[in-house]
């Protein structure tokens, strides 16, 4: 086996040194009746060339070459080449969690820089080293708010990513955290009146997303005021990190739970991504996850260490702030490199291109459908309501190798024939025009059948 660095003679010499005759003796502690006396049912040993062929074939069956207008928590942005050059260095790729600081300064310093940049972008004072993803970060941020306030109930915006809401519901079930939902108003933003009515002295926090699931930017200041007036915290989820280049960050929030996938992380069919939690200095001891801090060595030289570990499971066990151990370090490094490439000016210009493409697309789509929530500011997503079922529209588009917007009926039946469309800097004008042409019923070659629509729906 090509990954194993031993010859049969090496194995014999080692067995002899141990005082054993055969390798079977090493497995003697396992009761005989449980030992597996057959080959595992896994593929036979394959050559590297065969493995590459296998995955290339799977890739061809996986939407290779399609133009996509999907966003909804996973965004297609350009990934600068140097990200993969740098994260492929074995010293980053094949290192463990940096517990041994003297031989992990590379990882530690890069995390310290990551924490700093997340603070700069979000307007928060402290950020952790990463969480699994945006959905679990939001759930952990809510649990943090519950610990900080000593209150238990939580108000969640209906305009929060529906799958984030599902994850929170799973986490909350056995934490004794009652969840209530606050709906959205005609402009797609949180219904502030509804929030004011539902908030109580038991409310630990209000959880919103901005830009929200519809791409609409929330009035964070107004929501924060209501939360704070009632002694509750405001937790803001950010799923589209590129928005931070041109959209004012939710500075009034107490905790920000972010998904940083947009910053140089491949779509990868949903993961691995990079969650982050950022907050205020005064809340740091209730934060989950790893934190890197600056310190000095015996000679007074600057160095970095994992710190405030008394929050964590390996020290506090059942009293820890979270059970999280392994996080998303290498993905956080991709995010870090991306932030360096674009930096202070580039992130703004990048975000502006997203804004321009989306404004153009929304203008074009408005000719053939209704753009919902157009009376509130948006970033790079918008909801198009059509007479025709979006599944049927998407069926037509798919034949032209275009993946249309995400049909919303499953998540928001009240919106009828609506779909969530996304444009980024990678979306070309010609792709937008082609998609708009596909949406226009008059230009459809033939009305698609019901079966066809159902097939596409899956």
């Amino acid at each position, binding site marked *: 086996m090509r*990954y194993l*660095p031993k010859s049969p003679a090496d194995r014999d010499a080692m067995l002899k040194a141990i005082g054993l005759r055969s390798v079977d003796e*090493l*497995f003697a502690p396992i009761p005989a009746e449980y030992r597996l006396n057959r080959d*595992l*049912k896994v*593929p036979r040993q394959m050559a590297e060339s065969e*493995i590459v062929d*296998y995955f290339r074939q*799977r890739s061809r069956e*996986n939407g290779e070459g399609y133009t996509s207008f999907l966003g909804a928590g996973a965004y297609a942005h350009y990934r600068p080449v140097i990200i993969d050059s740098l994260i492929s*260095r074995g*010293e*980053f*790729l*094949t*290192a*463990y969690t940096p517990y041994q*600081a003297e*031989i*992990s300064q590379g*990882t530690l*310093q890069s995390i*310290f*820089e990551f924490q700093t940049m997340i603070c700069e*972008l979000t307007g928060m004072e402290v950020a952790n080293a*990463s969480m*699994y*993803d945006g959905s*679990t970060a939001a759930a952990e941020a809510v649990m943090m708010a519950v610990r900080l306030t000593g209150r238990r109930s939580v108000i969640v915006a209906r305009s929060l990513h529906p799958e984030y809401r*599902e*994850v929170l519901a*799973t986490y909350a079930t056995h934490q*004794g955290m009652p969840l209530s939902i606050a709906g959205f108003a005609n402009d797609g933003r949180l219904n502030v009146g509804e929030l004011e009515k539902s908030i109580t002295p038991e409310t630990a926090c209000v959880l919103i997303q901005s830009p929200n699931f519809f791409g609409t930017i929330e009035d964070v200041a107004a929501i924060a005021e209501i939360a704070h007036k009632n002694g509750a915290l405001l937790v803001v989820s950010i799923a589209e990190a590129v928005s931070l280049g*041109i959209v004012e960050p939710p500075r009034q929030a107490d905790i920000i739970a972010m998904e940083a996938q947009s910053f140089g992380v*491949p*779509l990868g*069919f*949903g*993961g*691995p991504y990079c969650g982050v939690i950022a907050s205020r200095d005064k809340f740091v001891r209730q934060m989950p996850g790893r934190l890197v*801090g600056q*310190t000095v*060595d015996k000679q007074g*030289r600057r160095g970095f260490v994992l710190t405030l*570990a008394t929050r964590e499971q390996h020290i506090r066990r059942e009293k820890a702030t979270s059970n*999280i*151990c*392994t996080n*998303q*370090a*290498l993905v956080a490094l991709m995010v870090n490199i991306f*932030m*360096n490439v674009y930096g202070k000016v580039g992130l703004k210009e*990048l975000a*502006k291109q997203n804004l*321009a493409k989306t404004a153009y697309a929304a203008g074009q789509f408005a000719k053939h459908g209704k753009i919902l929530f157009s009376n509130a500011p948006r970033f790079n997503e918008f909801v198009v309501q059509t007479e025709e079922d979006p599944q049927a529209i*998407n069926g037509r588009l*798919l034949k032209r190798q275009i993946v249309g917007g995400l049909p919303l009926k499953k998540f928001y039946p009240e919106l009828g024939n609506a779909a969530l469309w996304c444009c980024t800097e990678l979306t070309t004008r010609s792709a937008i025009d082609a998609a708009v042409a596909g949406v226009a019923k008059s230009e459809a070659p033939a009305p698609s059948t019901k079966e066809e629509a159902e097939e*596409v729906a899956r």
Partner: protein
Amino acid sequence: MKPTGPKATLHVNQNEGLIFEKSSAGKAAWKLPPLDVPEVDAAKLLGASERKDLGNMPEVSEIEIIRHFTRLSTWNYAIDLGMYPLGSCTMKYNPRVNEAVARVEGLANGHPYQPEKISQGALQILKTLSECLIDITGMDAITLQPAAGAHGEMTGLLMVRAYHHAQGRPRKKILIPDSAHGTNPATAAMVDYAVENLKSDSRGMVDIAALEAQMNEDVAALMLTNPNTLGVFEQQIHKIADILHAKGGLLYMDGANMNALVGKVRPGDFGVDVMHLNLHKTFSTPHGGGGPGSGPVAIKKKLEPFLPTPVLVTRADGSLGFEYNRPQSVGRVRAFYGNFGMFVRALAYIQANGPDGLRQTTEDAVLNANYIRKGLEGTYDLPYTTPTMHEVVFSDKLQAKKGVRTMDIAKRLIDYGFHPYTTAFPLIVPGALMIEPTESESKEEMDLFIDAMKAIAEEVNEDPQIALNAPHSTRVSRLDETAAARKPVLRWKPPA
């Protein structure tokens, strides 16, 4: 002081400040294509929501970024440089073909919401990997959704909870041996179970009498790591399972140490009801400085109704898809379908090995741990003489007489060119040295390691200060962790 022993030598190492210290206005590493749609006025579109300033975000050129991270990288130890014997962490070789196939276009750029019709490639990977892992573990079904081992533990215990609830007998507590990883009790607390400690016997295994005494109808499950953190296989595993099952409890296995079992014995065959795997340990996906991981949870049939949504299914026409309508499901534990990129890598690893390679891998991992045990027995105290599987735990009892503790020995090992073993864990061994070589080490590398450990033991006898002040050859010496925690500096700030 120079590095020591035949493995390590001096090497010029570049200094590098923080990236913010290199930043200056007007430098850039980006270039956008010309806009093919009309320009927009952000102020007009966004109004009060427009952001004007990005604070202290850096402005640097591409070569500076390349040098910055390349210099930083050289300050790290890595598997690619040598043996990384962290116990229970399974730091094995990370094959490069895994990285190549994870970056194939249709897999790297696949959107999680693209129609199933054009996602059959990704779904086929999920299915094939699931089938492999089900056979490897001897279980009946699996979810790949959890993002890491601890996340898998949570998912598993949620299913345990849902199972007991469905039986109409919700239970209150989880038994956890005193040798367990910290994530086990932390996870139990997250799903609102009380934690009850279970002590180990003199051989380092579950104390059967204690288990019998503590087991009752309030116990939902026992969370057992097998082999346990001493590297010891629970020889009475069938009895343990019987005791739990007799009172309606479930056996949860923490699969952190699955590298000792693959192809040789299957947890499903010895009574395990639910277990998680760590693809970043047993199945070679890279640790990346602390993640991403992946923590699939494999289960027996009786737990299947409770799997997180969505569940992968084969439709009537033979195509693959996700089923969302699962009324008894514990719900979703993560957005989308899990760390898909890790599934690609794990499957590539299984394909590269095949059944024969996986078996040989396990045999080599156990052989290596026993070779190290033999080599260091006598030099270091071996608190439990029970047979060793994939890792061996010594203690610093002999060296502590000279005032040298496990952490000091670990730091001195750095000067010999090795990453330290796991220190001070498991908690049942005071001053533990927990060593897991994995199958990836050659006889030569292990001989160097054994020699280094012996040389350190000799140094401790002659001059304890050498170990107490180690490491001597790194770019920074021991860092002041107390100061870091007392006055936390968790981000850079511009000089006032």
